[in-house]
């Protein structure tokens, strides 16, 4: 078992290395780089050359990549080519914002999906089930930038209940509790938009897992004992469906560190989505690579966990395997 996990980690590292190499190669092959920005007057050739030399931009790509790997092994994520700040510092600013946003969205998603899933599994095909499915499918189909614009217009502009954009009210002096409350208020709309998208998937997942469990031996036995379906679901179903439910981790963990460019643009949230977009456009390779690593690690962790759990549980797979 331990050997299997070690092997998995080794392959994950190889995957990350290959992906980072490909991203590096792709970005380097695009026209332009971070050292060719123009000012209002053309720069003298020697000045331009010295500028580029600072970033080693004229060295062969292999050397530059090797340099990045060497720095990475030492724990140094490099310097941003556009803002000249350390990548670690940049990430330290943007990543917590995205984490907070995503964590809240995931909580809302789970808190809404579980009751909906239970309702659906209670009477599969029934009124609640179909209503729930329709609602979540509709939510999933709404383009996120559309809902963002509409919600923003309704709640911030028209009704004025919520702040328009940003993550904090600048210039205000609040105690730490007040600051948290202020931050949460700013996150309501972005979280609502983010949560809507994944709700369908999670609800369906919960519902299916519960239906399978309920139809299985444990469920039948409980109903034979006189327990109502709903009661069974709430008290035992979730637990027994627990392991399959945990395979949801493959879906949730990557979403924890991802950034949504659209949400960030519309709501003015300084997260990793807009950082990635700007960095690609600016050819800021160290930042793009660092962000790729982070989301890559999260994706791999999620899928590995999900796969391991599925292997333990799925009877059809075990039967066939």
């Amino acid at each position, binding site marked *: 078992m331990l050997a299997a996990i070690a092997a998995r980690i080794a392959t994950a590292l190889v995957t990350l290395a290959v992906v980072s190499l490909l991203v590096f190669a792709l970005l380097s092959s695009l026209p332009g780089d971070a050292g060719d920005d*123009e000012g209002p007057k053309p*720069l003298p050739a020697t000045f331009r050359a010295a*500028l580029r030399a600072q970033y080693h931009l004229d060295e062969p790509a292999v050397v530059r990549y090797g340099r990045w790997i060497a720095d990475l092994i030492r724990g140094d994520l490099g310097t941003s080519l*556009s803002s*000249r700040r350390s990548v670690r510092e940049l990430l330290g600013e943007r990543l917590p914002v995205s984490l907070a946003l995503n964590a809240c969205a995931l909580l809302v998603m789970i808190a809404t999906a579980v009751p909906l899933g239970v309702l659906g599994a209670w009477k599969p095909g029934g009124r609640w089930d179909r209503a729930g499915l329709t609602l979540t499918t509709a939510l999933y189909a709404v383009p996120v930038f559309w809902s963002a614009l509409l919600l923003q217009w309704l709640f911030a502009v028209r009704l004025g209940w919520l702040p*328009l954009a940003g993550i904090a009210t*600048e210039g205000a002096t609040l105690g730490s509790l007040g600051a948290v409350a202020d931050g949460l208020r700013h996150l309501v709309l972005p979280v609502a938009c983010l949560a809507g998208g994944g709700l369908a998937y999670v609800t369906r997942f919960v519902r299916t897992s519960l239906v399978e469990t309920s139809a299985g031996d444990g469920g039948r036995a409980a109903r034979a004992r006189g327990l109502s379906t709903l009661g069974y679901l709430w008290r035992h179903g979730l637990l027994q469906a627990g392991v399959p439910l945990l395979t949801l981790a493959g879906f949730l963990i990557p979403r924890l560190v991802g950034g949504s460019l659209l949400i960030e*643009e519309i709501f003015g949230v300084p997260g990793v989505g807009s950082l990635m977009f700007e960095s690609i456009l600016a*050819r800021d390779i160290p930042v793009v690579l660092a962000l790729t690593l982070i989301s890559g690690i999260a994706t791999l962790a999620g899928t590995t966990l999900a796969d391991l759990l599925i292997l333990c549980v799925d009877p059809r797979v075990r039967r066939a395997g």
Partner: protein
Amino acid sequence: MTSGWRLPLAAAAVCIGIAACGASPAPPPRDVRVVLYHDPSSLSLIGNTDQNSAQLASMISDGLVSYDAAGRYVPMVAKSWDLAPDGKTLTFHLREGVVWHDGQPVTAKDVAFTVAKIRDPATQAQSWAGYFADVTSLETPDDATVIVHYARTYADALEPWRAPLIPEHVAGKDSDFLTGGFARHPVGCGPFRFASYAPGQSVVLQAFNRYWEGAPKVGRIIVRIVGAERTGYEALLLGDVDLMAVTPDLWRESQSSTAGTRFARFVYYRLNAWKVDWNQTNAVPYFRDPRIRRALVLALDREKFAATVIGGLGRPAASSYPPESPWSDPSILPLPYDPVSSASLLEESGWRLPHGKRVREKDGKPFTFTLLLAAGSQEMADRIAAWMQQSLAPVGVDMKIEKVEWKTFQQRRKTHDFQAAMAGVSFDPTPDQYDLYHTSAAEGGFNYGGFSDAEVDRLLEEGRSTVDPTARHQIYNRLQQRLREVEPMAFLFQLAQPVLRDPRLEGVEASPVGLFQFAPGPRAWHWSEAGTGR
């Protein structure tokens, strides 16, 4: 229970009464909140600066000179200057009593330090380094005098000296200028001192009470960083922003909505234009003939487009010397809308319309080209391109559109890998446009189309080395006439800057370089009523 509260209430009322009539301390001056659409790339005032950083820098620190509202030079930290007759030596005399935000006096050594930093590649001062390329040496015989030597006669010798000054005793301590303490907390000698920066959120500047020309009349300037123009506009409606430039679409919206009509508004023009570079290198055959370049512009009904789509907030451009430039020749007017002349010019140049076809041909090849444009937040660019395509079809020209992202666009322009390329361009108030038109500027300059004309080259060289203003005016008038004859690039529109402001905020003036980078600029802003502190 009933009578117990009357006495304290009465006492309270008396106290309030006394407080209201008595000598209450003056409330702190109100803040002004403005917007930026992007984080400043650097707070270091001169290093790695983009347009946003430059706006902030101009409030935090002064240069030796600046522009006034008409684009002429005015003394700032330098109280006077002398340019030698040969144009190669410039002597500044610094003003007394100018201090840094920490109280230390500004001296000539700081000027020398600033220049040294700008010319150091490690500072990455792309916005300023080009201006100082011709400075050979700089002397500081005493604390109040700076003598600059140029390699050649530099008629616009004052232009580099708008650069914000930085203090040697603060910035000199950093081993890495761009990431050191100064870049995190800049110290300047301008009307506002840097207070704080919350990335992605805001930059806060505080009024500097010991500013040499007098303290600003507002308390703080809070620069909110918003993602899009629309978000800024919504913030303006909600009262979170006091002053902002808007797009034509938002301007129209503000005129029709009840919330929007309460703002005071004005429109001004900056020294910029929307232009099309025609590739005249050997790669493309069409655009080497000036008649064709002229014909393509004649086919566009620019007045109508400006009146309808831009809502009157733009006008056809005539040349690279907009009317706001002190050097503009007023006799050069924008080309009219004349599709008949356009068609006949194309006929003259050999492009005939075969019977039954819609696209002109010459030697069996159709007149079809691709306009390259850059993806960005300039939504107007897409509309201009689509409109051009529709306008050129009736005169028998087939234009296609290709949109690529910014760096690709820049790279293709520089390497002349395009047929026609459309983008915005800004001009300085100085008349020297050598980098735009000279033959040598095709490699490494801004002459992306590879235009070349002997007379234009000669006039450009003469203009930048003639110091006498009258002679210069003659040269540049002749240049503008010659440019009108050959139309090297198409200057399509000048887009206006509409500005909305809280009606109680006064003293907001505009210059050809915008609301910020001139004197007095933000220093003159004030609230018309005695506001409460914010």
